[in-house]
């Protein structure tokens, strides 16, 4: 027994040593803050006088903008004396967590990361604070915040039933990424139609060692729906009829789009059926795919030489056209306040600071995703971020879609269940379990039933 005890104790001692070795964090030396001069500093001093020492709990999913926010946090904490506790998790886990917390009626978080798909559900659960009164208040929403500067499409995406529930920080569209170096090398033109995309992907697949044609996310559930929804409309399909609200999943256009997706994925890296967006982005960033159709949020990562071996060799294009036109979609993320928070003013201060125009330079420099017109149209920013033009183009393409009364996200509480059905059946078709036709019919039947309740 003694040898065993000795071993056990030794191991425990080693573990203890590990933690002892990680010494206490250095506390920043506190100096007397200089006299506030700029409007931001004046605001900061004002906030500090009222809310110093408050601790905010922020629930977020992993996202480049969140990384940027985290880097900006110490600046915020110094300015206002408010402490921020970040709770970062995977996107799916965030959805689960918010649903559970909302249903349980607890208020663990003050600020949460919100997206169009979550909004109707969270509003129904009584979890979100409507922000219109805060926005209208000129003291609470100072000039340097400049809400109007945020692209209209993004501002609207977090509104529901006429009220705004979130301040967007990252706007997202979907566009085409392609390896300009490979295209130059093989003298290929940028594809402008889906047929050309198919042909280009087939061309590049296996052209070089470890190279696949195309990469995108396809994992079952929401991710599959996300990606597929971009394909539906260019092929003439639709999710819900703009006039009657009837589902159209068994219509030829919708099914064609799914069949196309299945076909083009032949030219994707192995394992594609399980790809979440990190894996899809990673494949492109490690040079394993010639084209990628993915969220604009991938662009900063792709251009980051520390993580991406193809940084600087990528160019961007708007979405290719299908038989029914070229469309894209608008998603994004924003910060929302929970209705049950007991620190709403402090939370609002946090939200305004992080998403404000004044902080944009720092935000973008730290890898934040853009959502503001001033930044997107700024020539200096455009030259640093070569994908801004594609972003503007695809925002226009999304507007074209919205003009037809269609959109990639349907703002209603049943959307999450609808997208789950879509994402499950489509993923089964992609995995080869069923045909696209069967998937479409199955979805149609289930969604008709869902909506009739």
């Amino acid at each position: 027994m003694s040898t065993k005890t000795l071993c056990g104790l030794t191991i425990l001692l080693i573990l203890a040593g590990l933690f002892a070795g990680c010494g206490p964090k250095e506390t920043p030396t506190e100096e007397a803050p200089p006299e506030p001069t700029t409007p931001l500093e004046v605001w900061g001093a004002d906030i500090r006088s009222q809310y110093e020492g408050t601790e905010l709990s922020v629930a977020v999913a992993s996202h480049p903008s969140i990384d940027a926010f985290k880097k900006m946090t110490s600046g915020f904490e110094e300015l206002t004396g408010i402490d921020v506790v970040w709770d970062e998790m995977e996107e799916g886990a965030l959805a689960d967590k918010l649903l559970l917390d909302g249903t349980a009626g607890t208020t663990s978080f003050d600020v949460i990361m919100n997206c169009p798909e979550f909004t109707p559900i969270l509003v129904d659960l009584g979890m979100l604070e409507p922000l219109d009164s805060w926005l209208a208040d000129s003291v609470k929403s100072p000039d340097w915040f400049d809400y109007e500067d945020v692209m209209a499409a993004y501002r609207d995406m977090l509104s529901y039933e006429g009220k705004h529930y979130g301040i967007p920080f990252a706007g997202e569209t979907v566009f085409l990424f392609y390896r300009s170096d490979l295209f130059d090398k093989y003298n290929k033109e940028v594809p402008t139609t889906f047929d050309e995309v198919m042909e280009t992907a087939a061309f590049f697949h296996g052209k070089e060692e470890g190279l696949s044609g195309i990469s995108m996310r396809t994992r079952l559930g929401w991710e599959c729906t996300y990606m597929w929804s971009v394909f539906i409309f260019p092929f003439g399909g639709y999710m819900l009829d703009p006039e009657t609200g009837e589902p159209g999943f068994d219509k030829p256009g919708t099914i064609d789009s799914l069949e196309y997706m299945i076909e083009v994925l032949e030219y994707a890296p192995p394992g594609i059926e399980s790809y979440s967006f990190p894996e899809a982005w990673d494949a492109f960033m490690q040079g394993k795919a010639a084209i990628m159709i993915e969220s604009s949020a991938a662009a900063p990562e792709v251009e980051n030489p520390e993580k991406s071996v193809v940084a600087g060799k990528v160019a961007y294009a708007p979405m290719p056209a299908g038989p029914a036109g070229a469309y894209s979609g608008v998603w994004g993320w924003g910060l929302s306040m929970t209705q049950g928070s007991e620190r709403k003013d402090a939370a609002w201060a946090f939200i305004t600071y992080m998403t404000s125009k004044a902080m944009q330079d720092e935000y973008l420099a730290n890898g934040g995703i853009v959502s503001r017109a001033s930044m997107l149209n700024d020539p200096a920013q455009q030259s640093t971020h070569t994908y801004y033009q594609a972003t503007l183009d695809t925002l226009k393409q999304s507007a074209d879609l919205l003009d037809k009364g269609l959109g990639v996200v349907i703002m209603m509480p049943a959307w999450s269940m609808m997208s789950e059905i879509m994402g499950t059946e489509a993923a089964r078709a992609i995995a080869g379990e069923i045909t696209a036709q069967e998937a479409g019919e199955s979805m149609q039947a289930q969604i008709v039933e869902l909506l009739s309740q």
Partner: protein
Amino acid sequence: MTRLPALRQRNNVVPYALILPAFFVVFTLAAFSAFWLVRMSLVRWTFGAPWEEAVPVGLENFKWLLFNEHSTFWNSVRTTGIYVAGTLGPELLIGLGLALLLNSKIIGRSIYTAILVIPIVVMPSMVGMVWRLYFSYDGLINYFVETFFSTKLNWYGSELALPAVILVDIWEWTPFFVLILLAGLQALPREPFEAARVDGASGWQLFRFVTLPMMAPLILTATILRFMDVLRIFDVVFAMFGGGPGTATTTIPIYVWRTTMVARNIGRGSAVSVMLIIVIVALTFLLVRMFERVKYEM
């Protein structure tokens, strides 16, 4: 195990009083949650909506799951079935083989039995994540596959995802069989073996006619214990693939989660749970029979 004489009881209440706290806590908890579960299975209810909005629908959830053409319930039953067969069979055979091996005089047996404890006790959810990495295209498993077979396999695809999960289970639970069967082998009486050897039995005959019959109750007990656990597996599959790709790894417990939290149909999810519990309770009856036989023979 010795049978003990009953103590003289002065008080008929004492035994019940001692059991009372345990009984109270466990049965109350179970009763409440079971009651709620059944109630939830009989309504149409969205997760998140208040209870008042739940619509009573009788057995409709069950009927939908079992008979509706869009229901993937039977898919998940089939997936679970493949999972069970794919894990129990190999685990038992490899476990028995390894147990027999270790039963003969092997150097370092005590170290081996110590090492074999590890896969059983490691945190399934975290280990599931680690295995997810191992099965990635440029992961550890493909490294060995490439070394021996000059090819890399797509474990994330719909054909190999379930086998991947099964392999992880085999890694985790074969030691269960090894340790139990080894203990059983070591506790076998010598006489039947000696008698058989005197009669001129060969190694194989010894195994088939002496070892196996004597080990049968233990093998059965271990298998049934494992069987019931396999039906409940959630952590590892959740961490590795979350039921995907498609519905390739959607076993019944995963199906419960997807239906309840992702599709937010708590009525249906509860119905699946009810059916699962019924099956497991039925199996426990079997286990109880086996138990009694093993207890007496050890």
